């Protein structure tokens, strides 16, 4: 059992165990985790949740190392939740984030937790959202969620943070591939990393391209996605990124957008939880496994159409 008083006082062991509990795939643990979340939810400090995404090699970890240290220097307590891809074969993962956030990982006011992405019901982000809340209950007031910018996890993370930052490569040549459909709508800021030395010129060029692209997309809200350059390695303009995010926070709080965004996310969260519960109920149904197995076989043998098979499974409920 998790010692919730210890968790609230910011004890690392208690926080780590609590995150393990919410990540557990065991039904019994899910029940305990939900109860725990219900209990600690009112204790959560008011936090700022920032999602950080970008393609592999863009320098996410290096950016978080520099950015996290800056946040600590201005008095913040920083939790980093990083999702690492799992091997699809055996399901194991290599979680190497701390090797790339060496200084941040030593800071008293930092907590870094890499999590394996592998095969969770309800998706990766489901657990990340709950882990985020545990970090808040433990007194962390800035939560950085790191996600690899490929596939579903990016969209899920964007849907649970207050600010979504996408890191970009400075190569202006691949600007068209760089602008993925959807990113423009998701990103609150696009930050071109590696703007140092010889990279400076191409970063500025990339900035112009992205800026043009941003201008082409209609933004219904109060905030125009910002395009910036920085160098995480050389610690250049990292402070500018932070003041831009502070500016966003101030404006969105004033306009009531901050709370509105969270409220909308809570609604989505409920939907996700509901789907997860339905899925669990389904798996718990006594005939589900057998019927599904039989129908899968029949579909493979070509005796039943996929449509008919799906309908027969659904008819169980």
């Amino acid at each position, binding site marked *: 059992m998790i010692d919730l008083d210890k968790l609230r006082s910011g004890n*690392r*062991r208690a926080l*780590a*165990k609590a*995150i*393990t509990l919410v*990540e*557990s*795939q*065991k039904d*019994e*643990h899910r029940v305990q985790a939900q109860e725990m979340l219900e209990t600690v939810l009112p204790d959560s400090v008011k936090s700022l949740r920032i999602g950080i995404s970008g393609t592999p090699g863009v320098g996410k970890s290096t950016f978080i190392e520099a950015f996290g240290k800056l946040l600590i220097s201005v008095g913040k307590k920083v939790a980093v939740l990083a999702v690492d891809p*799992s*091997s699809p*074969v*055996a*399901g*194991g*993962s*290599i*979680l*190497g984030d*701390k*090797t*790339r956030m*060496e200084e941040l*990982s*030593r800071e008293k006011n930092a*907590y*870094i*937790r*890499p999590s*394996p992405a*592998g095969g969770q019901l309800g998706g990766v982000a489901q657990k990340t959202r709950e882990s985020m809340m545990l970090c808040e209950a433990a007194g962390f007031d800035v939560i950085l969620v790191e996600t690899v910018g490929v596939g579903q996890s990016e969209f899920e993370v964007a849907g649970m943070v207050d600010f979504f930052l996408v890191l970009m490569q400075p190569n202006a040549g691949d600007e068209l591939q760089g602008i993925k459909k959807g990113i423009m709508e998701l990103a609150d800021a696009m930050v071109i990393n590696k703007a140092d030395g010889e990279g400076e010129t191409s970063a500025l060029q990339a900035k112009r391209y992205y800026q043009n692209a941003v201008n082409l997309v209609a933004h219904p809200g109060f905030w125009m996605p910002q395009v910036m350059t920085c160098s995480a390695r050389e610690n250049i303009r990292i402070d500018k990124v932070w003041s831009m995010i502070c500016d966003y926070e101030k404006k969105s709080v004033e306009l009531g957008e901050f709370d509105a965004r969270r409220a909308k996310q809570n609604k989505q969260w409920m939907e996700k939880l509901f789907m997860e519960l339905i899925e669990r109920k389904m798996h718990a149904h006594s005939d589900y496994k057998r019927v599904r197995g039989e129908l899968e076989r029949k579909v493979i043998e070509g005796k039943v159409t996929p449509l008919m098979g799906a309908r027969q499974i659904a008819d169980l409920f």
Partner: protein
Amino acid sequence: MSELATKGDRSGVSILQLMDEFVNQQGRRPRILVVAVGQDIQAESSRDVGVQSSGAKIIATAFADLGFDVDLSPTCADSKEIVRQAIENDVHLVALSIHVATGTGIGAENGEGANDKGTDDESANVLSRVSELIAEFKTQDAEDILVVTGGDLSDADHKALEQIGVTLSLRPDTQMLLAANQLLVAIVSNS
């Protein structure tokens, strides 16, 4: 050897089955922190900070392939930092990959002639580092996290490590499957 242990060392299939059973029981995969300890690390880290010694990387990849969740530690981490990472990531076990120069020990009191090339300062440090690490786990109230070692050491060194609280001291000729199996068994019997 327990039933689990003999079951797993026959083929890769059974370790994966064992792994499935573990996941069903615990709700997650066995999670281990791999740390490189010893001589070649200093040299390597001065060239490229944050890069694990290749031995540790090979071990990490192999264990991940067998279904473990594997955390890597920065090469220059001291005992306090290693324990902190083990706690923060909530690992079941810390695996120390020990590298010493050929012919040297890690500081165990070997019998006469057993280690007559002597131990240089660096390698002699390893044993004291490991015992410092184990003490640090006690200090930080995390004694339930196991410590295992692997490396090309003398019998006396292996024995010395197990005497100071290392759960398993694996030899370099241990088959990866057998090693994974032994780790899994150690984790199961500890939880």
